[in-house]
């Protein structure tokens, strides 16, 4: 749901008259359109424009004693928050993170101390609530200095749970999160959620793989499917299969996970389509580096890989991948030339 300041139902209660700005109420049920929008945006559809107007909102019928939670103005985020808050009465302060989710915006600092201070003032929160407490999502902490927020606004920051689904439990436990609520797991559900965009963003590589396959076929180096499937499949292995099955692949290094997946895929292709020595060697050299590069790139979507680790992988494996891939390209040309000459 993308709200503009003009939309939303007016609130006719006597208390509302004295509240600055008359905050709109967010519905806690998602409409059919919201649900479709949320699925499409995971595939990148109108992702940059999927924004909610930054402002203070109500959920239920909050009073001056009700808690204030802070979130980002990515509409997918706001929708998850309001759906998880059904039955609660609270204030929601939506920051302007340029339509980026809490975790990524915190990394950039747009979900941060300055923006919290700005929005607290703009919404005149000190006039709306009697307490001086903001519940900030824990994954926003990389952008927020709790002690600086206190200095700038007078509000205490309490870090809420990692997942909004735990908010009710957190509130019920007097705003204390247990260890489980504070821990990022990055399980299969989280991986399923981020894989579609991974695939959409690698469309150029997918297209290149398809073109390379078609070219082989056009020069009679291989039948159509035997030419195209290994290449397209390598991209899907790297962008979808290995990321989804991440813990099943050995090695901590993402490059090595990808190479393992790529060799597996190449062997499968050799078994599936008739291949002589040159074609088999082409699969084993061309495909694994492609898979490895895509899997390595998935470090950007995980919530447990450190930048120092990623830099270490670049340092260790860049030349290995370049040489491996270069041999693959040479064998690709050899295989193609052979088909063309025969």
């Amino acid at each position, binding site marked *: 749901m993308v709200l503009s300041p003009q939309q939303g139902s007016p609130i006719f209660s006597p208390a509302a008259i004295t509240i600055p700005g008359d905050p709109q109420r967010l519905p806690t049920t998602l409409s059919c359109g919201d649900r479709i929008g949320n699925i499409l945006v995971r595939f990148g559809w109108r992702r940059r424009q999927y924004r909610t107007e930054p402002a203070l909102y109500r959920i239920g019928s909050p009073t001056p004693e009700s808690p204030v939670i802070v979130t980002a103005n990515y509409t997918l985020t706001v929708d998850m928050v309001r759906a998880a808050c059904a039955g609660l009465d609270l204030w929601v302060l939506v920051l302007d993170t340029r339509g980026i989710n809490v975790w990524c915006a915190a990394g950039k600092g747009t979900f941060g101390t300055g923006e919290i201070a700005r929005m607290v003032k703009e919404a005149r929160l000190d006039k709306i609530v009697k307490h001086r407490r903001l519940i900030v999502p824990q994954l926003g902490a990389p952008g927020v200095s709790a002690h600086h927020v206190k200095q700038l606004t007078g509000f205490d920051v309490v870090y809420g749970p990692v997942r909004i689904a735990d908010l009710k439990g957190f509130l019920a436990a007097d705003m204390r999160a247990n260890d489980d609520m504070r821990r990022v797991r990055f399980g299969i559900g989280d991986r399923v959620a981020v894989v579609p965009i991974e695939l959409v963003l690698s469309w150029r590589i997918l297209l290149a793989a398809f073109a390379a396959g078609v070219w082989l076929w056009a020069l009679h180096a291989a039948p159509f499917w035997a030419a195209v499937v290994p290449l397209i499949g390598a991209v899907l292995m790297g962008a979808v299969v290995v990321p989804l099955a991440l813990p099943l692949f050995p090695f901590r290094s993402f490059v090595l996970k990808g190479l393992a997946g790529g060799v597996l895929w190449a062997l499968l292709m050799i078994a599936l389509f008739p291949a002589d020595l040159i074609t088999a060697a082409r699969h084993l050299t061309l495909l694994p580096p492609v898979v490895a590069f895509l899997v390595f790139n998935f470090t950007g979507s995980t919530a447990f890989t450190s930048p*120092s680790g990623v830099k270490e992988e670049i340092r260790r494996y860049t030349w290995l991948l370049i040489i491996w891939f270069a041999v693959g390209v040479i064998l690709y040309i050899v295989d193609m030339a052979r088909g063309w000459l025969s």
Partner: protein
Amino acid sequence: MRYLESVVTLKLDAEKCIGCGRCAEVCPHRVFAVTDRKAVMVDRGACMECGACQKNCPVEAIAVNAGVGCAYALIRSRISGKEACCG
């Protein structure tokens, strides 16, 4: 799941620490615990260098090279010489 642990840059200065517990509160990988009014690193290898602890430590007892953890951004920054950014 765990990642490369030997290169983690997280450092804690126990002298400066006042035991407020903010680091233990914000860390999504439960790297810190507070015992005897001092923070200790109980699982340093799990650190993903997000920088939340450093940012929320009121006495600057924590240092970490925090930043973008995405390979593509880091490769681009290495080639262009500019700072890494998710774009």
